[in-house]
């Protein structure tokens, strides 16, 4: 029985990495530039959507209930508003994640805050979606 064992490759040879792992290019962190890129993509979409939404909401300052409700029923406001909520959720979660990772170095507290970050964003975001949907479809 003469099996020749392959010598342990040196780190520089990096023979342990499969071609697939190399092609994915994500390394051991399992994520690449997603965070950076998604923050940019949502920055651009947020910008456009905020302009569209803000111009309409600013006009509602001091308006009575019937006026505000009618405005909210219009898809010209509710649709960009829903898009803004979705795009904003992604953007604000990534941004707060960076802040938490910058300032909280104890692993336990950091992980806890990162979880709370996700919970907060989903809670606030879906509350907005629920309210807009109710106004658009319901009474």
């Amino acid at each position: 029985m003469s099996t020749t064992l392959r010598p342990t490759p040196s780190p520089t040879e990096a023979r342990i990495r499969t071609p697939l792992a190399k092609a994915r290019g994500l390394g051991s962190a399992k994520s690449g530039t997603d965070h950076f890129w998604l923050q940019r993509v949502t920055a651009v979409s947020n910008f456009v959507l905020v302009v569209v939404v803000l111009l309409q909401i600013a006009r509602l300052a001091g308006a009575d209930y019937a006026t505000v409700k009618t405005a909210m029923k219009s898809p010209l406001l509710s649709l960009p508003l829903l898009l803004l909520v979705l795009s904003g959720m992604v953007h604000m979660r990534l941004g707060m994640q960076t802040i938490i990772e910058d300032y909280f170095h104890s692993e336990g507290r950091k992980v806890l805050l990162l979880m709370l970050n996700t919970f907060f964003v989903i809670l606030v975001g879906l509350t907005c979606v629920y309210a807009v949907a109710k106004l658009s479809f319901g009474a």
Partner: protein
Amino acid sequence: MANADMQRPKARPLSPHLQIYSPLINMVMSIVHRITGAALYVGTLLLAWWLVAIASGPDYFAYVNGIMGSPLGLIVLLGYSWALLHHMIGGIRHLIWDTGRGFDLASVDRLSWGTIILSLALTVMLWIWGLSMRGGI
């Protein structure tokens, strides 16, 4: 001996903290960008509250509208709108930098001053416009 020394490391000089530096405009704008981002994060509660109020009916809407229209409420909304505009314009500055442009010191200062001046000007314009429309959609 060596072990005891290792357990109690000598006080080493730390890299300078924020308060050591005299404030530069690009540094201040960088800090303000993060603060406005965090403020907008919390401020989404205001948007959610307002939307829920509309969806809840005229009584609760009148209650929330009263709070937001009070002097304190208007100050918060003023700050919120400025934070939004400032973060948006600061974001554009960052997108310009992402392309590799505007990194010479003169451009950095110009972009930073432009951010604060434009954000304040746009906030004033937004409020004058919004208040002039007051309820008359």
